[in-house]
């Protein structure tokens, strides 16, 4: 396959916003996301060292089946996202929209699962600053706070992603996003895959390390 | 130096300071004079033209390597003296330093407590620092030592006082409203005098006053009439004050009941003009009686 990515960086684009430039912007945005979540992962690892035993015992209280299911849901959605882009570029607009809708559906499914998971814990009285939690060991307080903050922020990202993909589906329908100008969809994909990667790390950190 | 050199650490710090400031002043003078010289020497005049000099690799290397060496020297000087200042000898007297908003309490091994840090001249002392509420920092300029008091963990400092006298203690980590009033003194006494004090001659003060000290009340309230964060205790009993009770102002006369209520529920009646920042401090009924009794007779 002939590789025709524009690598002549010195050239000025008449269209002003070129394909590689737009993608570079998105990647840089993702770097900031890496550092944003990085701060939380740092806190996680620091407190895990401090409260190893508490972290282990707390992690065993999370539902490993739900966690695994959610991992697979997100991975699958990521694949459909990638497929939707390649379908669009092959000119199969309908199929691309269908894949985007499936991605949205899986994202929503993920959030619904998360909702049930959170409510189960909240039902037990475990949420930040709850009397039940404050009675527990300090390491457990920190673990569950980390759990809520990290999965919560991740969930927020999923929610935003779902909204953006919905907009993209509409754009594809109206052909604002087309086989010749699909960088918006591709950037949405980058974002979605990044959200997936964050979960790939959250999953073992909270569910598996027992 | 600007202030007394009253501990072993001060010697190390001041020696390092002189060397590093010496290098710094030399560098500053060098840079500034070369700069001024070039301006006057190459000032634009009619007919003069700039001669293009593109730079030189040799020069770049020289003025990278020399600074690297200089700063490494400074680092080593700082690191050496730092290590000396941080390594406490094994045989050492320890004193607990308890920081809270906004006062210091010093606790000795024999149970003695004091709001002034009394130490014997020439004997190494280790301070075990902790905080009850927010971050504070224990600082004695004359000793050139400082360390934060962090809630939830313990930090330490040590020093050997080398000059008799009394020196300022400051809090250098901003800790709220009364931060700038969070002062105390370190009193360096001859060993004999210290031993007498330590053994407890004069230790039996008034129980109420002792409690006010231990509980940190005197961080905000004085017994001599000066104003700190809260109203003074001097002559408080029988004083007529305006208080704000759940948003409404009313005038009352301070009596035993009011005093006790103010300790048990500080937010209930706030004296007008003072901020509502007093924390609830646990006291036993017996302690409360002792405090009330003391305040009643403080004129």
């Amino acid at each position: 396959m002939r590789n025709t990515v524009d690598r002549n960086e010195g050239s000025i684009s008449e269209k002003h916003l070129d394909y590689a430039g737009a993608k570079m912007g998105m990647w840089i945005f993702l770097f900031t996301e890496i550092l944003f979540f990085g701060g939380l992962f740092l806190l996680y690892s620091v407190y895990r060292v401090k409260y190893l035993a508490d972290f282990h015992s707390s992690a065993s209280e999370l539902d490993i089946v739900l966690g695994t299911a959610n991992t697979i849901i997100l991975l699958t959605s990521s694949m459909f996202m990638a497929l939707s882009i390649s379908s669009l570029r092959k000119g199969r607009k309908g199929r691309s929209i269908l894949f985007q809708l499936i991605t949205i559906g899986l994202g929503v499914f993920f959030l619904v699962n998360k909702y049930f998971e959170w409510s189960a814990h909240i039902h037990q009285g475990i949420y930040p600053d709850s009397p039940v939690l404050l009675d527990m060991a300090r390491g457990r307080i920190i673990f569950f706070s980390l759990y809520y903050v990290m999965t919560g922020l991740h969930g927020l990202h999923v929610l935003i992603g779902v909204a953006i993909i919905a907009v993209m589906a509409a754009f594809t329908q109206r052909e604002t996003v087309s086989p010749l100008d699909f960088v918006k969809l591709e950037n949405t994909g980058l974002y979605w895959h990044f959200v997936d990667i964050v979960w790939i790390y959250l999953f073992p950190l909270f569910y598996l390390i027992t | 130096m600007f202030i007394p050199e009253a501990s072993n650490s001060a010697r190390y710090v001041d020696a390092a300071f002189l060397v590093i400031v010496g290098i710094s002043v030399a560098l500053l003078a060098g840079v500034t004079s070369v700069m001024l010289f070039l301006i006057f020497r190459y000032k634009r005049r009619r007919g003069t033209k700039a001669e293009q000099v593109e730079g030189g690799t040799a020069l770049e290397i020289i003025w990278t390597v020399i600074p690297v060496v200089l700063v490494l020297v400074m680092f080593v000087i700082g690191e050496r003296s730092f290590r000396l200042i941080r390594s406490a000898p094994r045989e050492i007297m320890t004193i607990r330093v308890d920081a809270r908003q906004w006062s210091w309490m010093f606790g000795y091994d024999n149970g003695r407590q004091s709001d002034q840090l009394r130490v014997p001249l020439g004997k190494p002392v280790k301070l075990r620092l902790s905080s009850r509420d927010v971050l504070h920092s224990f600082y004695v300029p004359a000793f050139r030592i400082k360390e934060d008091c962090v809630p939830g963990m313990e930090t330490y400092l040590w020093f050997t006082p080398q000059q008799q006298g009394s020196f300022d203690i400051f809090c250098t980590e901003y800790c709220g409203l009364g931060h700038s009033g969070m002062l105390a003194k370190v009193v360096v006494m001859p060993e004999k005098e210290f031993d007498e004090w330590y053994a407890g001659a004069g230790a039996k003060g008034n129980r109420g006053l002792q409690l006010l000290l231990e509980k940190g009340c005197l961080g905000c309230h004085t017994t001599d009439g000066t104003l700190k964060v809260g109203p003074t205790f001097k002559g408080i009993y029988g004083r007529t004050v305006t208080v704000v009770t759940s948003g409404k102002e009313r005038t009352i006369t301070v009596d035993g009941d009011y005093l006790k209520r103010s300790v048990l529920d500080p937010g209930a009646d706030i004296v007008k003009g003072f901020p509502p920042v007093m924390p609830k401090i646990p006291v036993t009924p017996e302690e409360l009686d002792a405090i009330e009794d003391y305040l009643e007779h403080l004129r």
Partner: protein
Amino acid sequence: MSEAIVPRHGLNSRPYLLVWIGLVALTAATVTVARLNLTAFAALISIGIATVKAGLVLIFFMHLKYEPLILKVMLGIALLALSLIILLTFSDVWYRWGAHVHP
């Protein structure tokens, strides 16, 4: 946008399916390892597997494979930055926990 600067890679759907199968397999593997309770290494293995999965997503789903070198370098810088701040923070907490922490 002219046709010439649009990349042509990543059109085939087959690799995506294969990567997906790989990811699901790795998920199964990591859950199994966790159940085995290899206490000393469990955490390390889990993170290792997660990193492989993240790598697959990056390289194939996110097309990093086809991106110009400069993007890969940039990503490297971002990851380096993150690892350095974690490392430097641990130079504190690693030596601070234990001795001074109240029980």
